[in-house]
């Protein structure tokens, strides 16, 4: 049963011991001579499994525990309790065979050598992972083509833009063709175009290699574009595991119908169709129950002379924001 899953997590917990200090001089002396510590349960009995080739997004507010889960999955930190199996290995043992199966990319954290061109760092990584020289060159040029970087490979890292550096970081992390990618905020700080290119690359990489990808991001576009499945983490617990559409419909049972009518119509004329959100000249925005959308749209089309019509979900950022503040999915 366990072996059929690429990643299996059971009852995973992590407790950190954190020192507390009160403000002021008194607090400073008290902290110096008699340090008090608290146990902070960052992850509380988490369970989930992930199939090979899935792209899964971890969503959660800052400090929710998503990065801690990611770090335990890649073996960087040891869990306090629980069972983890990634690609058939126990991550915390950090066996070489396991390390060759995974990679961790952290936005704004770099492994490239600052004063040398990325190519030098790639060659170090290729040698460390035991990839033959010719094979490594083929992999580097294939990935460089996918990432749309060429000349940048031979320029010192310090001379590259943030977007170019991130692409080079991704390339350095993928030289050994890992089957599991852990991405912690991979698009952090990138401009919209660079974010989009990184997302495009990850989608393509997943298609080509069937690699399992787990990512955390605060950019909803990363999640909506890349992740068919999301895990919502709140105060160290997983409060939702499923696809984004289902989450969206569970969180908000309504859809928004925005339309334009040719002639001026009074506000009262629309109140029977749904909750009026906005009327501005000929533009009307209605909030309608999801299961009545088709019926209402047909009614509107037959009752009015509609110039334009659009059906929308409420912005996902707002819905996720609600989860973060409420800590539960209805």
């Amino acid at each position, binding site marked *: 049963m366990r072996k059929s899953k690429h990643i299996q997590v059971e009852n995973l917990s992590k407790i*950190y011991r954190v020192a507390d200090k009160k403000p002021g001089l008194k607090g400073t002396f008290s902290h110096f001579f008699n340090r008090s510590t608290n146990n902070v349960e960052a992850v509380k009995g988490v369970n989930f499994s992930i199939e090979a080739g899935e792209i899964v997004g971890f969503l959660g507010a800052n400090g929710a525990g998503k990065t801690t889960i990611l*770090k335990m999955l*890649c*073996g*960087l*930190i*040891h869990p306090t309790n629980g069972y983890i199996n990634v690609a058939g290995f126990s991550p915390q043992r*950090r066996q*070489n065979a396991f*390390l*060759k199966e*995974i*990679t*961790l990319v*952290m936005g704004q*954290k*770099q*492994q490239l*050598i600052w*004063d*040398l061109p990325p190519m*030098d*760092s790639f*060659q*170090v*990584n*290729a*040698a*460390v*992972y*035991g990839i033959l*020289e010719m094979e490594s060159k083929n992999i580097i040029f294939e990935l460089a083509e996918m990432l749309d970087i060429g000349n940048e490979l031979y320029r010192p890292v310090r001379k590259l833009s943030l977007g170019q550096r991130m692409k080079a970081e991704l390339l350095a*992390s993928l030289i050994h063709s890992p089957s599991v990618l852990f991405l*912690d905020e991979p698009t952090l700080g990138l401009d919209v175009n660079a974010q989009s290119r990184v997302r495009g690359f990850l989608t393509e990489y997943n298609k080509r290699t069937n690699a399992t990808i787990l990512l955390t991001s605060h950019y909803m576009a990363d999640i909506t574009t890349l992740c068919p499945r999301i895990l919502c983490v709140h105060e160290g617990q997983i409060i939702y595991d499923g696809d984004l559409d289902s989450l969206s419909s569970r969180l908000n049972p309504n859809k928004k119908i925005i339309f334009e009518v040719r002639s001026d119509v009074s506000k009262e004329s629309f109140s029977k169709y749904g909750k009026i959100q906005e009327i501005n000249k000929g533009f009307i925005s209605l909030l309608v129950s999801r299961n009545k959308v088709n019926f209402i749209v047909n009614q509107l089309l037959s009752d009015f002379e509609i110039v334009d019509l659009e059906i929308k979900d409420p912005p996902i950022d707002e819905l996720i924001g609600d989860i973060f503040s409420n800590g539960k999915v209805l």
Partner: protein
Amino acid sequence: MKIFGLSPRVIKVLLTTQYANMLEYRIEIALWALSGILPFIMLSLWTESNTANTFSFTNIELSRYFLSAFLVRQFSVVWVVFLFEEDALLGRLSPYLLQPIHPLWRYVSSHLAEQLTRFPFAFLIAFIFFTLNPSSFWIPSFPRFLFACIATNFAFIIAFLLQSLIASLCFWSEKASSLERLIFVPYLFLSGLLVPLSAFPSHILKFVLYTPFPYLINFPARILSGMPVDILKIISIQIIWILILTPIVRFLWQIGVRRYTAMGS
């Protein structure tokens, strides 16, 4: 064939890449080499105060000793604590820990590459020293030179292990560089960098010889400068220190890495 678990290709790529990296910092390295002239300052101090005889050295022997101390120091200086602390605090250690090579090998390669970069500067300083002080010129016999090279390399390994031991404490204390002072001060006074150990009272010297510090500068420098010394005994003691420190570093690393919280990332 593997050397310490590393393939020749990994060793070659690590060294060439780190050498290329160090060449980017050649001016800084030249300045670092210059900043290592402490032994020459001590030489002029001891020569001016006519205390050479109290060390049982002639002035020429004293000159040769301090030049040798300078050269040994140039090729055995270690700063792994500072590299490790910076990498740990900035989160750069995390990707290193997730690669199938021990992170300490990266630091070893950067130190070796830096030594190679220092070589011409150290050679130039030695040349200037002999030009200004021609009476102290000497060429060690080939076996002496060879043993001095071996002893200097062992001194580097011992210093590296000592600092790695302190660096491992980074897993417990985020500021291990302050703990480095614990070994820097005894290193400064007991290694022979400031004064040859023959100047020490015999009861203190007896104690000092039980520490690793004299084997970092004093004895390798004595071998290079051609002074009478039991070379095989010195090298044997260096090997014993390496054999003692290696498992301690490995043990501390193993238990320390379990405490790692990937701070800064």
